[in-house]
């Protein structure tokens, strides 16, 4: 699935008032091809996360259009947009995004369950991923008992479990040790090259560049050559 953004912009107000704003992303044209890992780097505050959110259908641009295989991600029907997002797009956000009332295994299966796509072998598959990322003993633990790195792996498993065609990962290796960083990057590379997924990784870490098919850099809301 190809994601295409045409002339998208997003501005934020520093304080209340029409004139006091800045562009987090400015008139950006961008595309994510299938079966490739695209990496977006840049300084903090350069607009990487805002761009990722807009491409993932989570933040409506002030101007421009984002489409997935020709379908507008910000169409008028929220139910259709959400169903499409749940089925085809998976996101690993930068911050903590798990349900505190569910245990690790239930959090891993959350995306599948909400999309009504849980299968008989879903639990076994989730356990395989948990084992691969060395957190299987924590399958019944609650999120509050997990470290930042463990939580990040849970969010990644949740995204991988949905088997969505497009995966957006914002700093997926933050808080991870070298060994787990390797495993996560390998999983993302496999997803892109063997399962033909479209992958966008936003990162500060040079380690991730090793699996990149394409690298871009953001500067003051604009994409510049890496």
């Amino acid at each position, binding site marked *: 699935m190809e994601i295409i953004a045409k002339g998208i912009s997003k501005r934020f107000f520093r304080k209340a008032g029409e004139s006091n704003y800045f562009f987090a992303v400015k008139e950006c044209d961008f595309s994510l091809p299938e079966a490739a890992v695209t990496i977006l780097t840049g300084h903090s505050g350069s607009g990487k*996360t*805002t761009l990722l*959110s*807009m491409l*993932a259908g*989570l*933040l*409506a641009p002030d101007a421009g259009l984002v489409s997935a295989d020709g379908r507008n991600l910000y169409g008028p029907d*929220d*139910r259709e*947009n*959400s*169903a499409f*997002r*749940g*089925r085809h797009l998976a*996101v690993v*956000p*930068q*911050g*903590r*995004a*798990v*349900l*505190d*009332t*569910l245990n690790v295994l*239930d959090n891993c299966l*959350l*995306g599948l*369950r*909400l*999309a009504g796509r849980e299968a008989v072998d879903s639990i076994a598959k989730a356990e395989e991923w948990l084992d691969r990322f060395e957190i299987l003993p924590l399958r019944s633990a609650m999120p509050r008992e997990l470290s930042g790195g463990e939580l990040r792996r849970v969010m990644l498993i*949740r995204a991988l479990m*949905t088997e969505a065609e497009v995966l957006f990962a914002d700093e997926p290796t933050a808080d991870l040790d070298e060994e787990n960083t390797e495993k996560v990057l390998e999983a993302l590379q496999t997803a892109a090259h063997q399962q033909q997924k479209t992958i966008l990784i936003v990162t500060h870490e040079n380690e991730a560049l090793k699996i990149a098919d394409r690298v871009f850099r953001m500067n003051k809301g604009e994409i510049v050559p890496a």
Partner: protein
Amino acid sequence: MKRLAVKNLLGRPGRTAALFFLVLLLSLTLCGGGLVLSSLRTGLGSLENRLGADVIVMPAKAALKTDLDTLFLQGTIGPYYMNMSTVDKIAKTEGISRLSTQIFLSSMRASCCSIPIQVIGFDPESDFTVSSWLKESRQGSLDEGRLLVGSRVNANPGESIKLYNISCPVAGQLQPTGTGLDTAVYCTLPTIRTLMTAAEDLGGYSSISGDPSETVSAVYIKVKEGVDPKDVADSINVHVRKVKAVQTRSVITTVADSLSGLERILTLLIIAAAVLVWLVLFAAFTLMTGERKKEFATLRLCGLSRGRLAGLVFREAAIVSLLGSAAGVGLSFLLVHAFSGALGNALGLPFLLPSAGTAATLALAALFGCLLAGPLAAAVSARKLSRADTGLILREG
């Protein structure tokens, strides 16, 4: 989604308990308040049915010392008596259709008596106030020496109550009236006269003067159709000495007036309390909006639509509301039932729990109201939450 709602509620026991408590309070206010109001109305209706008489005549001494309402609410006027010859004079008054006498006696707080209690003696032949009640209570004939006990008297049929060293078997228990009549025992005139003689022998009643067989405490009068009870009462007051005749209607009107005033105050208080609790519930849901922003952003991230997200919030609110309101209704019934006597005494009005049908209607209304109140309080929060931009919330970290 249903499982997720339940898990969310169980996963946040403190928050769930607080919401549950608020809904319980709302339900308790609505159902409990409704029950109290309904019990007062039922009590007044019961009082009207129980009295049946148009005019009551009592010794003037009793009328001076006793608040007339007390007679109706407590059933007796205390140890005041008049002679049978006075009854004959009263009977000669124009316009009387039926006349019946009653005698009141109090037991003593002494070893001669099992319990301190009011004893009411009546004549089953002429009575038109107690007998219909006995029929409603499906009690058989009252033989000499036997007692019928009020609903709040702690004695069961087959047991005996000792009064002035005389053991009186309990023949049956009467339906509740919500008045002091429930704490009295009833017997025929010959039985109460035997008790009066025994009381005099024990020095229990110095005020019983003369032959007990020639004394009565009150005369109950039903006037002929078309006759104004006021005319009969006035005539008795003019022509018969040392008695006071009162219209029951005027007393019932007094009770009804106090009830009406109290009803207005109680209704206002119930509405004010319910609105206040609902506002707190609304504030609780609004405060939770901020607290749960990340949680809802995560669900949106996983593909949950705004509608389904609002549905989840409503489902949680509905589950808590159902449980809280059911508990509140249950607690209302328990508390009002347990304290009905104390409530009646405190309010100084007849207090009788409503019929099962009325109680069920009240319970259903409170349940329905609270079931709506929870989701309604959550509606604004649900809308606000579902409108929030997921990307922005995640961006905030």
